[in-house]
């Protein structure tokens, strides 16, 4: 075996090891969700057991899974649409009409992600309370949309930068208005990039827990709230918690698996010329 193929093997091995390590908790959770509670807490843990659907039926009996799932879908899609509506014009102006401070603005936007969300919990909570946005889908869409906004702007900005500005000038000569430039040239050219950004944003919003736990109770509660509700009230029921978690992540896992081709294509998008 020569040196380069040895390296290839080593890299492949490392990749698999990392992937397995990352997948292990999810796989274990999936297994646990089919165990009777007694088996679930046994030490040492066992992987040989007679599977049961008891946990799932218990979980579904206790809470209206479909309602939570509907909220999650509405919030993830709504927040993504909101973020895109704000980010596309924003990234356009930063990519094609940059000023001396454009870079600073981008960094500042990203820096808001470094602030722990809990730091603004009280003001946001009070604002949402006074605006009557607590426990509303719309309220959650606004806060989730704003929290993914920096990432969405950053991604779109980098995709838009790949577009030679001379193409926009050609469109301007051809008679395109500002919106024409944006909708007929920029958006179609960076379509795969925008799609990848949207997919990532949907996944981030789906998994978002902090704001849904703190700003919603019933009417707008998402699957993260659903999962959390199984974490403690009657002591720890690992198997039921696992079943609830599996139910929460199943849709987004399927979604992610189906869209991975678009994601990869979009994230490696470039070379318009």
């Amino acid at each position: 075996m020569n040196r380069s193929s040895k390296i290839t093997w080593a890299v492949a091995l490392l990749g698999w090891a990392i992937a397995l390590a990352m997948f292990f908790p999810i796989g274990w959770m999936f297994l646990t969700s089919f165990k009777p509670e007694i088996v679930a807490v046994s030490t040492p843990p066992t992987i040989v057991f007679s599977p049961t659907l008891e946990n799932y039926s218990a979980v579904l009996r206790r809470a209206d899974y479909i309602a939570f799932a509907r909220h999650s879908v509405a919030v993830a899609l709504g927040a993504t649409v909101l973020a895109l509506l704000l980010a596309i014009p924003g990234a356009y102006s930063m990519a094609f009409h940059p000023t001396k401070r454009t870079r600073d603005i981008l960094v500042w936007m990203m820096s808001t992600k470094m602030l722990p969300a809990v730091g603004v919990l009280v003001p946001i909570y009070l604002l949402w309370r006074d605006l009557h946005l607590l426990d509303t889908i719309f309220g959650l869409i606004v806060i989730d949309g704003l929290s993914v906004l920096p990432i969405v702007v950053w991604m779109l900005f980098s995709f838009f930068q790949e577009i030679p500005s001379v193409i926009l000038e050609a469109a301007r000569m051809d008679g395109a208005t500002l919106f024409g430039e944006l909708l007929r040239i920029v958006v179609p050219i960076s379509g795969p990039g925008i799609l990848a950004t949207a997919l990532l944003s949907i996944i981030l919003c789906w998994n978002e827990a902090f704001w849904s736990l703190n700003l919603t109770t019933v009417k707008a509660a998402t699957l993260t709230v659903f999962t959390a509700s199984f974490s403690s009230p009657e002591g720890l029921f690992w198997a039921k918690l696992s079943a609830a978690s599996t139910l929460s992540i199943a849709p987004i896992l399927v979604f992610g698996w189906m869209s991975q081709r678009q994601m990869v294509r979009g994230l490696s998008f470039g070379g318009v010329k």
Partner: protein
Amino acid sequence: MATIELRNVKKSFGVQQIIQGIDLKIADREFVALVGPSGSGKSTLLRMIAGLEEVSEGALLIDGVPVEHVPPAKRGLAMVFQSYALYPQMTVAENMGFNLRLAGVPKSTRDEKVRAVARVLEMEALLQRKPRQLSGGQMQRVAIGRAMTRQPKAFLLDEPLSNLDAGLQAQMRLELVRLHQELNTTMIYVTHDQLEAMTMADRIVVLNNGRIEQSGTPLELYHHPATVFVAGFIGAPKMNFLQSEVAIVTPREVTLTLLDGGSLAVPVPRRKLAEGENVTLGVRPEDIVVDPEGEFPGQIEIIEHLGAWSFLHVRMGRGTKVVAVAPGDRPSRAGDRLRLRLLRQRLHLFDKSGMAIEDPIPGGGL
């Protein structure tokens, strides 16, 4: 069909003034080439005419109407970009019809116009392709076609051939000239390549540091360059410049002493020369003849054989290098010693500031 007029047009980016006050009138149906080295402001000037850059100062008129505040599309001009700037997500037909679509032209009329232009450019077979499936030459054709479909008052071309290989450039040059004759439209052509300007343009405007150095027909610029800059820019191989000093002035002729040694009597120019004045003598390679009777000895350093002609790079007495053009069948080799004669009636004189000292009076002197 348009006249374009610039009146004292200036452009600054911040404190830097790129265009220093340009006055230029372009006649209807004229093919004008703006040439100059990079940084001379030629592209900026074109972009200002197009409306892609604002005019900082001065007036810009199309058909006599001021257009400084008219958006690009409303000026009725079409532009062809150096990098083609085709819309990558659209087919060739869509690229060419985009301006019509934006103007609200119905699809059937649009298709008809696109097809008509495609026929002229002989690219009907490409209409359904995407830009990435085209060669450089084909993309250039599409870019020109896109400009043609809107039937503009004038075409603005920004170095349209510089991304093509030499063979294709020669072919496209002829095609552009043919197109200009057929379309009968004003064309403004920006290039850094004097050959393109010489071969295609009715008139050449030479720009340097944001100023017009000279404007005239290709042959005017070739035969009567107004400045050292123009003399060096127009013509290939480049004009040779020999530093010299005025030695003797008589009513019949002026004798120059070349810094490189030797002296030369030239016809008396209209402007009086003072004895002792430093002048630059410009002589084109084609006006230097290899002649055993010639007054300047030299040695060939390099020969470039072009077949019909050879370019001789000759080192003169004290090291000055000049290029001479000799017939290709002349047997010479690097290292050969020879004598050169300068064609006296074809010499150019420039003063210390680089301005041409008016041409010798024809027939005066000798």
